[in-house]
């Protein structure tokens, strides 16, 4: 059984008659790293948002099965508890919500769902220090409000830090590389690579092949106009970098 099976997924924006995803098929197995590339507006981030459960998108056709269950039946927080994680393209600032409170509540609700015991204060702090190190995040940031006053790079690293804390089964990274300088990109990529495992799958959404130099994907998909236009291995990403997306846009995908 595949970890994630997306079949003929059609998605529209609530209240508007615009279809963004027009029949996406995608299968991800445990431990695999998939990358989705594509031009602006092709629906990549929409796919990520639908996986996370964002409410203003309406699935009009098709299905998403996760661990064999209907993912669309689950509430946003239930998906997180089941091991779905979305690293945001634009991490949200939570003024006044301390990282400590936020992480404790998040980690313990996910642990509870997995049938694990709540972490005590000391164990929790230990985990924070250990996982912060993975992405070279200053542990002192944990004393601050979530993302408030963080630099762009710190916000992105914070997303991967949260990923490391929550230990998901399916991690969706929505343009985590955008806005990062080369050093930060390497740090974030190193962090992701350390988090790769046989049980954990990644779906990387990116504009640039550069990220894939650091995080080597098992599969690369090209999304154009709401569909997966072509799939291949990492060499496809290199070809895209050279040729651009024009080819796909000229001849609408045969799906």
């Amino acid at each position: 059984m595949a970890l994630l099976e997306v079949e003929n997924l059609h998605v529209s924006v609530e209240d508007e008659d615009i279809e963004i995803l027009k029949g996406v098929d995608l299968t991800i197995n445990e431990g695999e790293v998939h990358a989705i590339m594509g031009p602006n507006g092709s629906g990549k981030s929409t796919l990520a948002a639908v996986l996370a459960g964002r409410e203003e998108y309406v699935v009009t056709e098709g299905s998403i099965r996760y661990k064999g269950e209907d993912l669309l039946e689950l509430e946003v927080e239930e998906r997180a508890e089941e091991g779905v994680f979305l690293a945001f393209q634009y991490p949200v600032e939570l003024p006044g919500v301390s990282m400590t409170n936020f992480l404790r509540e998040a980690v313990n609700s996910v642990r509870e769902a997995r049938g694990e015991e709540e972490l005590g204060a000391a164990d929790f702090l230990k985990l924070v220090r250990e996982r912060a190190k993975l992405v070279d995040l200053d542990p002192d940031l944990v004393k601050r409000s979530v993302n408030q006053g963080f630099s762009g790079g710190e916000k992105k690293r914070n997303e991967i830090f949260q990923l490391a804390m929550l230990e998901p089964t399916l991690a969706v990274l929505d343009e985590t590389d955008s806005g990062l300088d080369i050093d930060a990109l390497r740090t974030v990529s190193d962090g992701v690579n350390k988090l790769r495992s046989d049980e954990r799958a990644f779906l990387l959404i990116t504009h640039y092949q550069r990220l894939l130099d650091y995080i080597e994907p098992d599969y690369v998909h090209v999304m154009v106009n709401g569909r997966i236009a072509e799939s291949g291995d990492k060499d496809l990403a290199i070809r895209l970098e050279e040729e651009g997306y024009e080819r796909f846009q000229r001849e609408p995908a045969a799906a």
Partner: protein
Amino acid sequence: MSTTTLDTSAQTIDRFVSAFQVNHGQALNGTNASVAKRREAAIQRFQELGVPTRKQEAWKYTDIASVLDRPYTLPLGPEEADVSAADLDPYLIDDLDAHVLVLVNGRPDLSLSQLDAMPEDVTVGSLKDAGDHPAFEAHYGEYADAEDEVLTALNTAFVQDGAFIHVPEDVELEQPILLLHVNAAQDDLLMQPRHLFVVEADAKARVIGRQLSLTGARTFTNTVTEMFVGERGYLDHYVIQEEDDNASQVLSRFGYHEGDSVLSTDTFTFSGEVVRNNMTLTPDGPNCETNLYGLVIGHGSMHVDNNTLVDHVHADCVSNELYKHVLNDQSTAVFNGKVFVHRDSQRIDAYQSNDSLVLNNDAQIYTKPELEIYADDVKCSHGTTTGQLDEEAVYAMRTRGIDEATARALLTLAFAGEVLEQVTLDAISERVELAVAGKLPERFNLTGLVETASALNA
């Protein structure tokens, strides 16, 4: 026990006037000529001013007349209150090492209080015993406006007892003073406590008033508090309002402070039926710092009205005002914040802001900032926001496995955080944070979280 039951067949005003006449000599310092004179003048003014109606701008949103019109009993002497130390135990604030003065139905009860550790030259006790104290002579009735404020006139006419605090020059009181105000009435009761805090020059004190109800009786408390802070002095006054849902009150505070002094007030309103807080602070000297912070957590059909005035009668002062409201259910909040800068009060920095989180369509906020400025070299600002929780933030938290109710509660606590940050006593900020968490809708149980957070931040 001497008690008068107000005659409800008579008009509200006449009822109080006849109660006054019947019990002429029974008030505070009945033999003190100056107090007696103030009382006579006050009942006169009460009659002239009449009970406030909603036609008056200051009472537009708060119907105090119908609260006053209820058939309360009016205690005129100390009652045998059925309160034991064990009853109060749960309400002493954990980890707060404080001098404790317990007031039962508005009167100090020294047998329940813990004042043994009080430095000898500091006075904390009963106002009725303070008649001969020079500070009483110098300050009593000097700041409370019994001329124009009808509820203050009423209190002044019926004044009997309350807390008296005197911190002499150069004394910095390490431990805060906790005034535990408990309503322990068996019948519907009208109380009119009168407090006087005098912090002399170069002295420092922190006073916490916590208001509670031990019984379910319907009560109305009409409190007047006068505060004086001398030059270079410091007074931080916290009020935590946690009375029952059938307890109403008007709390009128008048604070006067001299040059280079700090007077701060923090008002937390967590429960009560109709709660009106009048605050008049007058920094009368150069380099004064005046702070007013407030947090209202409205639920049920609570009605909370904060009416504040910072009266900048002197140049070169700073005032900061921040009130926040979190309104659930059908609760109503009113904020009327006035900053008055007189013509010669140059170089004033006055900041005011008022933010409201309206969590339910049936909750209401009426907010009116008023800046009246007659000087030309001043920096004054005010801001008002009213809104709901950031749905993006709620979603972001849910994607991390935090259920919706908890996400909303955490964001609400965060909204209140700006006021909580102003609390300089850890035990109080924690206590208040717990109370805020406990008053949040749906999933009330953030207690563990608050405790963990404070442990982690320790």
